[in-house]
């Protein structure tokens, strides 16, 4: 397959054979220049973790956007923005990722709720601080994701929350 990639002002095309051999170092063409690429290790989700490119080992991680397309590639800890413009010669489209429910806010990390700044039923504006959660001595302001009425708050001060716990919902 052929991929059109955009990084800032730089545009180039990447060509990966339809029968690409994942089990050996195999060539990938960037504007006709060949890189030898071998996936060494994947993580528990099957995502690439260690890749050997031209005999050099890279630790990598790839972040995808809402559409399931890669947005950021982190190489040895250094982030690179990547935009895949066009995929040629295939009808494949990645699955859209889980649809987000705008208004629902979950804890992004474990921690303790230290302050509620807005009460249930009050109106909030997008970006306003709703509550403060502390983790590892650092206070994190948790913002309203959109303007609206604060329908429910599921936590109170001193509550311990785990990652993914529902904090509050904005109508």
């Amino acid at each position, binding site marked *: 397959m052929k991929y059109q990639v955009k990084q800032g002002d730089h545009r180039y095309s990447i060509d990966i054979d339809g029968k690409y051999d994942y089990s050996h170092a195999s060539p990938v063409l960037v504007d006709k220049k060949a890189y030898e690429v071998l996936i060494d290790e994947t993580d528990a989700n099957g995502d690439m973790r260690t890749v050997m490119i031209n005999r050099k080992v890279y630790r990598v991680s790839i972040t995808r956007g809402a559409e399931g397309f890669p947005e950021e590639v982190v190489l040895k800890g250094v982030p690179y923005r*990547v935009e895949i413009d066009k995929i040629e010669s295939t009808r494949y489209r990645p699955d859209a990722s889980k649809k987000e429910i705008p208004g629902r806010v979950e804890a992004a990390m474990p921690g303790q709720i230290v302050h509620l700044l807005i009460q249930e039923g009050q109106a909030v504006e997008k970006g306003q601080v709703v509550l403060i959660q502390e983790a590892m001595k650092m206070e994190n302001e948790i913002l309203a994701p959109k303007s609206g009425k604060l329908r429910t708050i599921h936590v109170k001060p001193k509550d311990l929350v785990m990652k993914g716990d529902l904090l509050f919902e904005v109508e």
Partner: protein
Amino acid sequence: MFSKVLIVNRGLIQANCVRAARELGCQAITVYAPNDKNSSGVRNADEAWELEPKSSGIPYLDIEQIVDLAAKLKVDAVHPGYGFLSQNADFKNRLNEKGIKLISADNIEGYDLANKPQIREFARKMGIPILPGSETCGSVESLAEAAKSVGYPLVMKATEGYGGIGIRVIEREGELEASYHNVIAQSERFMFNAHQVYLERFFPRARHIEFPVARDKHGNTVVFPERDCTVQRRFQKLITESPSPFLPDSLRSKLKSAVHMLMDQLQVVGFVSVEFLYDGNQAYFIEVNSYMQPSHGVSALLTGVDMLREQIGLAAGNPLSFRESDLESDKFVMGVFVSAEDTERNFVPSPGVITRMHLPYGDGVYSLTNVFTNDTVATFYDPIIALVMVRERTREKALIKMQSALDALHIDGVKTSVPLMRALMRFPEFKRGDFDCQLLTNKETRDRIFENVRTPTDSEIAGILAALSLQRDASKQHILEQARTHSRSNIWDMASEWFSRSK
């Protein structure tokens, strides 16, 4: 020497205090919160007692419980490590009432090293320059009044704050009240009874310089080579260099004399560090810390002094076992604190399980950590998980060595400061010393630090990997790869067989 010492802390400093106490022949007893049971300090102590967690609050701050335990166990002394109760006057008094010594610096009666405005005033009277600031204030009104004479921007600090806790930068009067409530609330959680704050002029374009000092009861004083701890975030240190390559020799000897004088006047006994802000011309005294700081590992590698062991000795009334001239060295040590944080998201903590941790290696590269593969980085505590140090003849060589050390430091499972630190070692402004305490505090600079290490080749490789990840999705082949990669045990095979049967 003490016969029984209770170590009240967790993590690396707990392990290190257990070690130091045992090397002195003391019985080393320690405490642990239930989640911290499986740690080096607990494993190597002569006894370890579980702290009973209360519904709220951090067990290591539970003065009541800890003092009771210390009395029950009849210990001679308590080592508080750093943070937590290490500067807590109430804790110290409660222990002293039971005839138990807190291992932290003592000084002249009527002064409290933890009370920063008091010590600022003491230093000012001795003629040591201090930053414009206020006395302790206990209300929004008095703060507003004081702020007018200090001038904005300013820093509000909890009077007895430590380790970057209870500090807020304030740009204008409107922010005073909210910040005050914030600082007070945080103080309550970490320091107790600390309803008081003071103001200091905000001095963004300065370096942070500190002098470790040891003084025995006979008045013998040793000032260690200074540490430059300018690279910080949230007023907490991320890099320590010693000695500072940016301090002119003439100013260094002036500051050392001032430190000697201050120690003698305060009649300090024990280990402290005396901190200054240096703006390129003048150095301003900011505070004295009466506990052993995390950066002490850098001084220990530079000087060869076992500072924790010496600190316990001083507390037990021993004389200093070395002189200032013994510390002379032609070496330079740089230490990088590795924190479990997402530097891309303003250093938000990244707790989790470390799935792989490979330390760096090599001549002149030395690391301190008690976090290893399979360990969990907890949520409620300091996110610092390791200190990586290099010892070299010059800062220039040390920078190169630290580059290769950080390239070889490999941590999976949590986000860490390692990539930013790697890039920082290659950042021209950092390399030539053109930076101040604000270096890492804004995202724009952090982006420039990363941009400086990006290459056209790696940029193309990023594109390749993005494309390859889409192609793998398409082929779904990665599901099989995953199975192979993770098939480490028979159990997996059994589960896998079960899956195929249940189809």
